[in-house]
């Protein structure tokens, strides 16, 4: 313990980043073997452990940089790191039986399994890099890489729909990422007038120090490109179109991490840029732009929920809705709204991934993702049924679950800072509520259709772990977590 206590952030960070990379390399070779899944879990577990360790250290001595100034960890991103690593870990646990069943059903072959496992780890690694890096350039590189990792996973089933989804995912996100690159270039352009050219000019720490001196005209353009670029990855309306397809057609564990993690990382990227842009522009324009995108996303997604027939697609739209809510919160700015946004990020990741776990098994049992063919889950397997029911109620903001708490914070701060927006948000929430409950209820309750027994017992520990955490946080947020959020919120400022 002494060794741990005395350690700087560097050691845990190294292990944190190294373990998924190593896992990826290893799995690229033996990912299809029986122990592949185990290795997958192991690597993610190591990462999760290190993330907690890192978090503890940061919580103790505050923000610090590592490897020169290449990496930078502060309360804001370390909290996301912990979240990412944790959900990555639980998802790997879930993916183990799930993918085995997929193999049994003949939807996955050995090479695909190898690809799947390797890419899963690489994806985790890339997101961790994106979160911890200090250079906005590297952030861009990592985001692009994370996209590329998941493209092939989305289309892994090779069905026409899967290919279409993958193709759209690739093209739309590719273009978006290029826009982000252009934004980064402009940022660099603005920076080197102040800091001078060279690697230092893209380092967040430096930029943050001089953000008030950055050239407004350039920064405004830069922010437009960055917002659109990373916003596409975050699934903001009207550049969200890849999201439902990708979520619906990929393997469920991937849907879980896409929805629970990738979107968060994209929002994180937007946040970093927003801080700089606000600093440079001085007016609230970036914030207002985010508010607009957020509102649009919430409203449109809420109504689109009524047209869903595919279960995973429906929850993908719900993800769009919640990302909109988060973006809205950060757009509002101010400590309370930011706090709400961060809290909602956490709650959404936990709850939504839990839902996808349950949905995955439900779809496997019914042998389809079409909602009108899934019926009476409670009869065939109560745990999956209750998991889905409770998860859905949690995600639509029913107390005493955490989503309600964060939504309460966001809505109340909206009432204070942007009164006219609150009714719109609440309307959207009501519409979404009606849609989701109306579809989930008959799937969970009622008479069961003929459902197949699964060759392996489903992994339900992750589901109820997540839901339990959500419930606990909805009732009681431990003080250290609060102070942590608060510091993160103050970092975002606005």
């Amino acid at each position, binding site marked *: 313990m002494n060794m741990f206590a005395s350690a700087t952030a560097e050691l845990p960070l190294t292990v944190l980043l190294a373990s998924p990379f190593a896992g990826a390399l290893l799995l690229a070779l033996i990912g299809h073997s029986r122990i592949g899944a185990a290795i997958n879990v192991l690597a993610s577990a190591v990462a999760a452990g290190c993330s907690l360790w890192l978090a503890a250290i940061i919580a103790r001595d505050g923000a610090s940089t590592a490897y020169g100034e290449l990496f930078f960890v502060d309360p804001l991103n370390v909290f996301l790191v912990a979240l990412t690593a944790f959900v990555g870990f639980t998802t790997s646990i879930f993916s183990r039986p799930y993918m085995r069943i997929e193999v049994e059903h003949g939807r996955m072959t050995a090479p695909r399994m190898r690809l799947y496992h390797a890419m899963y780890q690489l994806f985790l690694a890339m997101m961790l890099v994106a979160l911890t890096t200090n*250079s906005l*350039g*590297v952030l*861009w*590189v990592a985001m*692009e*890489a994370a996209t*590329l990792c998941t*493209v*092939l996973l989305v*289309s892994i089933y*090779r069905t*026409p*729909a899967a*290919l*279409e*989804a*993958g*193709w*759209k995912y*690739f*093209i739309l996100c*590719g*273009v978006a990422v*290029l826009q982000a*690159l*252009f934004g*980064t*270039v*402009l940022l*660099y*352009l603005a920076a*080197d*007038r102040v800091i001078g*050219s*060279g*690697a230092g*000019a*893209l380092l967040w720490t430096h930029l943050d120090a001089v953000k008030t001196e950055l*050239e407004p*005209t*350039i920064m405004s*353009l830069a922010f437009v490109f960055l917002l659109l670029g990373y916003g596409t990855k975050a699934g903001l309306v009207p550049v969200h179109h890849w999201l*439902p*397809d990708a979520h*619906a*057609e990929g393997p469920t564990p991937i849907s879980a991490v896409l929805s629970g993690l990738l979107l968060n990382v994209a929002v994180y990227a937007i946040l970093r840029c927003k801080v700089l842009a606000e600093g440079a522009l001085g007016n609230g324009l970036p914030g207002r732009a985010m508010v607009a995108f957020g509102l649009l996303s919430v409203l449109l997604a809420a109504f*689109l929920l009524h*047209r869903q027939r595919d279960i995973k697609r429906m929850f993908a739209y719900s993800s769009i809705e919640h990302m909109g809510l988060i973006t809205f919160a950060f757009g509002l700015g101010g400590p309370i709204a930011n706090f709400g946004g961060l809290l909602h990020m956490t709650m959404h990741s936990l709850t939504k991934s839990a839902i996808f776990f349950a949905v995955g098994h439900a779809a496997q049992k019914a042998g389809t993702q079409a909602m009108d063919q899934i019926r009476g889950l409670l009869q065939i397997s109560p745990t999956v049924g209750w998991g889905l029911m409770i998860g859905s109620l949690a995600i639509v903001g029913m107390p005493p679950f955490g989503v309600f708490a964060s939504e309460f914070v966001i809505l109340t701060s909206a009432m204070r800072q942007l009164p006219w927006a609150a009714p719109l948000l609440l309307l959207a929430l009501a519409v979404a509520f009606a849609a989701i409950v109306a579809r989930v209820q008959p799937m969970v309750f009622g008479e069961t259709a003929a459902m197949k027994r699964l060759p392996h017992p489903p992994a339900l520990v992750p589901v109820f772990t997540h839901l339990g955490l959500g419930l606990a946080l909805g009732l009681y947020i431990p003080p250290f977590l609060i102070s942590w959020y608060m510091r993160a919120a103050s970092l975002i400022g606005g």
Partner: protein
Amino acid sequence: MIALLTQAINLFAALLLILAFAMITQRRVLNLVHLFTAQGLALAAATLDVGYLTAQPHLYASAAATFLLKVVLLPALLHRLINRLQVRWDVEPLLNAPLTMLLGIVLVVFAFNLATPIAALASSVARSTLGIALASVLLSFLMMITRARAVAQVIAFLSMENSLLFAATAATNGMPMLVELGIALDVLMGFVILGVFLFQIREQFDSLDTRHLERLREE
């Protein structure tokens, strides 16, 4: 000599823009590849030029990388792809050529207007080229929209990346080395994945017409 080289950059920039226009209207896939190669060449040259002018050795490396990737590797891969997939001609674009041209001109004007205030601020030797870079970015974007064939879209995508790199080089005298490398790596990876995709799509729909990829919808 210096002056000449400085003007040369603008020349390359102009070349890039012209190539972008040419690509918009070009319907023969093979020619698209040729144009793309030319674009890569111009980009490499410009990078070299800037590197010489600003005496930044790492730009030479990046120029070399660009040359290898954009002039040698990708075109070669594209050629093999086209031969394997038997796509000589693009199908009729969603928007006819003259209209596309017209739109393109509008975009150029728009981009220039947008870029002038920034260019005035840029310290680099080739500040005035930023507008051109932005213009060609938008043009390639337009091309992606109008083209119905997957291959064409891919090429447009790549050319968009070219113009972005040019913007990076010209406006800011090149990004930091690490970033450049990362970008290059991503481009390579991306292209490989694209190739895989094209084959998968081909074998699934035995055509590369993106009109087949319109099943997932909400209507």
